[in-house]
C-alpha cells in the first residue's frame, strides 16, 4: 500500500480540505478588506496543523469508539427490555455530558457577569458563582430531561414534530414573562449545550434504539434527540430567570 493511499493520510487530506474555507475567509478578508498584515503567521500555521491533526484523530475515534459504544448500549438496553433503566441512563447521559461542557461553562460565567452589571444579583464573587452554577444546573437538567423524553418517544414511536411543536409553544409562552436580560442567553444556550462528544454518542444511541426496536425506522425515529435537547434549555433557562 502506498503512502498516499493509507486511510489515515487520506483522512488528513480531507480534514485539511474541511478547514481550507476558514483559512480562505480569514486570509481574503485580512488582506483585501481589512488591509492589515496577518499577525503571528507562524502561530496561525501551527494552529492549523494542530486543528487538522485533531479533526483527523476525532474522526478515527468516532468510528472506533463513540459510534460503537452508543450503538452497543442501545442494543443491550433494547435486549434487556427495562424501560426504567433505559430512561435513567438517558437522563444521566444528558445531564452528565452537559454539566461539564466547556462552552456552557463559558456562557454561564458570561451571563453571571452580565447579571451582576445589570444589578440582578450582587457583584461579589460568591453571588456570581452561585448564579453561574444555577444556570449550568438548569441547562444540564433540561438536557437530561430532553434526552429522557426523546428516548421515550423512540420507544413509543410518537412523531417528532409533536414534541418540537410543544417545545416551540413552551418557548413562545414563557418568553414574555422572562426578564429581558436573560432572553438572549436563554436562546443561545440551546445551541451551546450539544457538544462534540455528546452529539455522536446521543445520535448513535437514538439510531441504535430505532434499529433494535421492531417497527421503528432508524431514519424517521432515530434522529431527533439532539433537536429536543437544543430546545428544552431555552425553556429551563428562562424559567430559572423568572424563579430566582
Amino acid at each position, binding site marked *: 500500500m502506498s503512502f498516499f493511499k493509507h486511510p489515515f493520510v487520506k483522512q488528513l487530506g480531507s480534514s485539511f480540505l474541511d478547514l481550507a474555507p476558514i483559512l*480562505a475567509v480569514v486570509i481574503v478578508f*485580512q488582506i483585501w478588506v481589512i488591509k492589515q498584515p496577518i499577525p503571528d503567521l507562524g502561530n496561525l500555521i501551527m494552529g492549523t496543523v494542530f486543528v487538522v491533526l485533531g479533526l483527523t484523530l476525532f474522526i478515527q475515534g468516532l468510528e472506533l469508539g463513540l459510534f460503537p459504544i452508543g450503538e452497543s448500549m442501545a442494543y443491550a438496553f433494547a435486549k434487556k427490555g427495562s424501560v426504567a433503566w433505559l430512561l435513567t441512563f438517558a437522563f444521566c447521559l444528558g445531564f452528565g455530558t452537559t454539566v461539564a461542557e466547556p462552552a456552557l461553562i463559558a456562557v454561564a460565567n458570561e451571563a453571571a457577569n452580565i447579571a451582576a452589571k445589570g444589578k440582578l444579583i450582587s457583584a461579589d464573587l460568591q453571588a456570581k458563582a452561585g448564579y453561574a452554577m444555577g444556570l449550568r444546573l438548569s441547562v444540564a437538567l433540561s438536557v437530561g430531561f430532553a434526552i429522557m423524553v426523546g428516548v421515550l418517544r423512540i420507544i413509543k414511536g410518537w412523531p417528532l414534530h409533536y414534541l418540537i411543536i410543544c417545545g416551540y409553544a413552551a418557548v*413562545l409562552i414563557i418568553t414574555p414573562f422572562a426578564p429581558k436580560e436573560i432572553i*438572549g442567553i436563554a436562546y443561545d444556550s440551546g445551541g451551546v449545550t450539544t457538544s462534540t462528544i455528546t452529539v455522536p454518542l446521543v445520535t448513535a444511541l437514538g439510531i441504535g434504539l430505532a434499529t433494535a426496536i421492531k417497527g421503528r425506522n432508524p*431514519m424517521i425515529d432515530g434522529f*431527533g434527540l439532539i*433537536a429536543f435537547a437544543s430546545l428544552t434549555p431555552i425553556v429551563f433557562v428562562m424559567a430559572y430567570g423568572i424563579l430566582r
Partner: protein
Amino acid sequence: MALFPLGDLMAKQLTTPEFLGIPAEATEISWTKYGWVYLFAACIGFATTLAEPSLLAVAIKAETVSGGTIGAFGLRLAVSVGVALGIALGTFRIVTGSELYYYIIAGYVVVLIQTAYAPKIIVGLAYDSGGVTTSTVTVPLVTALGIGLASTIPGRNPLFDGFGLIAFASLFPIISVLAYSQIALWRSKHSSSHS
C-alpha cells in the same frame, strides 16, 4: 489556537468606526454601511460549519443509515448555507437593534409550515442539524462577532443585543435542510414525470 483569536480580532476590526469610514461620535448609522460585516458573518458561518466535527459525525451517520440516499457532503453543504444565512441575518438584527423574539417566532412558523410538506424521512435529521452546528469551532467565533458588533455600534448594548447569533445559527439550518430535501424531492418528481 491562533485561528480563533484572529477571527475575534477581525470581527472587532470590521466594526470599528475607522474601518466603516464614519465619525466616531455618530449616533445613527444606516444599516447599509455594514455590508462587509454581513458578508464576513456569512462567510465565517459557512466555513466554520463545514469544518464542524459534530456535524461531520451526524452526516456520516445519516449517510450510512439512509443507505447513501442522503449524501454526507450535500447535507453538510445545506447546513452550512443555513448557518451562513442565519448569522448574516443575526448580524443585521444586531445592527438594526430589532427584537430577537420576532425573528425566532417567524423562523419557527417557517419550520412548522415546511414540516407539513417535507418528506417524513428528513424531518428528524433536519431538526437535529440545528443543534449540531454550533459547537467547538463555531461558538467562540460567532460569540466574539456578536459581542464585538454590539459594543461598537452606537445605541446597542452588548448585554441585550450581543447574544442571539447562536440562536439564529441553530434555527436556519433546520429551514435550509428541509428546503434542500424539498428541492431534491421536487426535482426527482419533475424528472420522472418527464421521462
